[in-house]
């Protein structure tokens, strides 16, 4: 370990370390964040949901968006996997179908940033535990 020699050192250190804690900080108040859920049941994983989720996490970090990405079980749209649900604060959730890496980035750029809807929206009619 290197010594922390000054107040500035400490601030820098904190910034470096924050990322890993961010996920826990955000979980304290998810309602104020964009909540992104990736369906990750067998069908989802088979259709590449894991790659999509990774892409979303990367993109959000890059764009510095206050969002939290979680996974969820099968939403019942196995035909349209991978599916991604996005819930913006104060809005109803929206579910996107056939999401791949490219579409994932579009979701962030268009829907999350600018509230533009994309193709392939599914009705959100399920209950989660």
């Amino acid at each position, binding site marked *: *370990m*290197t*010594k*922390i*020699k*000054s*107040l500035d*050192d*400490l*601030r820098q*250190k*904190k910034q470096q*370390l*924050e*990322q*890993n*804690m961010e*996920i*826990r*900080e*955000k*979980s304290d108040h*998810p309602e104020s964040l964009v909540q992104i*859920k*990736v*369906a*990750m*049941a*067998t069908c*989802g*994983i088979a259709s590449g949901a894991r790659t999509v*989720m*990774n892409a979303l*996490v990367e993109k959000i*970090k890059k764009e510095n968006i206050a969002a*939290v*990405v*979680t*996974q*969820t*079980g*099968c939403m019942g749209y196995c035909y349209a996997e991978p599916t991604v649900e996005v819930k913006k604060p104060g809005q109803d959730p929206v579910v996107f179908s056939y999401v791949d890496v490219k579409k994932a980035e579009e979701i962030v750029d268009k829907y999350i940033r600018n509230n533009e809807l994309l193709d392939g929206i599914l009705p959100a009619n399920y209950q989660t*535990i």
Partner: protein
Amino acid sequence: MYKMQLLVCGGTGCRASASATIVEKLNESLKAHGLTEDAQVVTTGCFGFCEKGPIVKVIPDNTFYTQVRPEDAEEIVAEHILKGRKVARLLYENPETQEHVSDSRHMGFYQKQMRIALRNCGVIDPENIDEYIAREGYSALAQVISDLTPEQAIDMVKQSGLRGRGGAGFPTGLKWEITSKFSSDQKYVVCNADEGDPGAFMDRSILEGDPNTIIEAMAICGYCIGASKGLVYIRAEYPLAIKRLQIAINQAREYGLLGDKILGTNFSFDMELRYGAGAFVCGEETALIASMEGKRGEPRFKPPFPAEDGYLHKPTNVNNVETFANVPVIFLKGPEWFSSIGTEKSKGTKVFALAGKINNVGLIEVPMGITLREIIYEIGGGIKNGKKFKAVQTGGPSGGCLTEKHLDTAIDFDSLVAAGSMMGSGGMIVMDEDDCMVSIAKFYLEFIVEESCGKCTPCRVGNKRMLEILEKICQGKGNMEDLDHLRNLAYVIKDTSLCGLGQTSPNPILSTLENFNDEYIAHVKDKRCYAKQCKALARYTIIPEVCTGCTVCARNCPVEAITGERRQPHFINQDICIHCGVCYTKCKFNAILVQ
């Protein structure tokens, strides 16, 4: 970067239920499923909800798994982490609606809580200083020693209204100020971590869950009062807390957050541990200091106070763990923020160890001014097995019992004293209709008699005599005069004992005499214990309609008090019966009635 984290409680309670094995198993499963890049297992401090431990919390969706066993690890990983399906059977079940609650924020236990002292417990890995720093750790210390004079810093603590969480509630800022005024070549900051109240474990949880906050606060205190040396007096019975605190001290030293010229300033501070050895009285500050000096932990008369004449006769400031845990937050969020919480004279929050006949046993932190009703029924989930609430004991052996009529009192230091109890370190034991209050008073007195140091007469002899009177009463041999003697002894012991332990030792008796006088009278006059706890007062009879005449009771009765023909109802001769209860435990047909 991890997308998910699994926080596993590593507090003493959960570790007792194999939480360390759970961590191992979770890691194995993550590895088997190739998820080590995506999810991370973190051992944290106590979540507080000990009743339902061990706890595993999945982040970021806040899924709160309760009573997890090591064999559940695979399912959590395979279902939840891999496929996103929550494991329903491990979720907390709302006792009223029987519905599963997955998000801890929606659990009654957490809804009314406000975590300041426990802010990092259950959130960070206590063995990793980086996680503490990431949560603004040591920022308060950095700010204080870089930008503030000791006077300014003390002023902020004074403005915050923080009072000592160890018992009597002495204003912390004032205490620091007094110690800062004495000049000496060496001064000491002492952290009292000799938590001894039976049924209180908040200090241990803080030390286990967030040891760095104590180090930071002690360093701040050292800067304020002009001390370069800190000592933590910690119970030897807390091996995990000792281990984690030592790790934190080592890490802080490596980062230069302890040692010479911290953060490039002229302020130097270092600390070491001193172990207690099993003496409740060492919670009293002068006894604690004697113990740290390697002597018998006997309190001495004050004045002089430790602020003037403390450890090795040097000016010494003693605060307890929870008090220190509040300090960094005061600087991070400002004294105004802190003083906006709580009541007029008691600011901030208080951690309570909620235990006894209550559904949700655990560690809770609530704003001062909350009512007992909120704590017991909303956070605590009510009385276990639907029984009737009888009393709640606060403040441990120094406190008293509060009853139904106190349920809506806003709790703070002063209201508890006014009600005949005290905050103490924050043990809160809930009793139901099955608890005999005379026995409870006796229980606390037994504790006091065992823990009295023996230095002063009232505590050494007086408490022993009070205990003898209570024993006599519980055996059905008491008379009304005994109650008078008991009351007089209690007042004199309170009035004349040397230290705080002795002065408060009659509180359990005085408060039960005040609030449950009828129970004492029932024991003394009617020779009855309606809670059926005092064996000698129990009356055993056989219900003839239920008795099958199996003769088991008669054969097992040690004094041959039971007579009866085979296959005929039996009968207990009350003159011979010694109330041992053997018949009651042996009867397979519930034919023995205890009154």
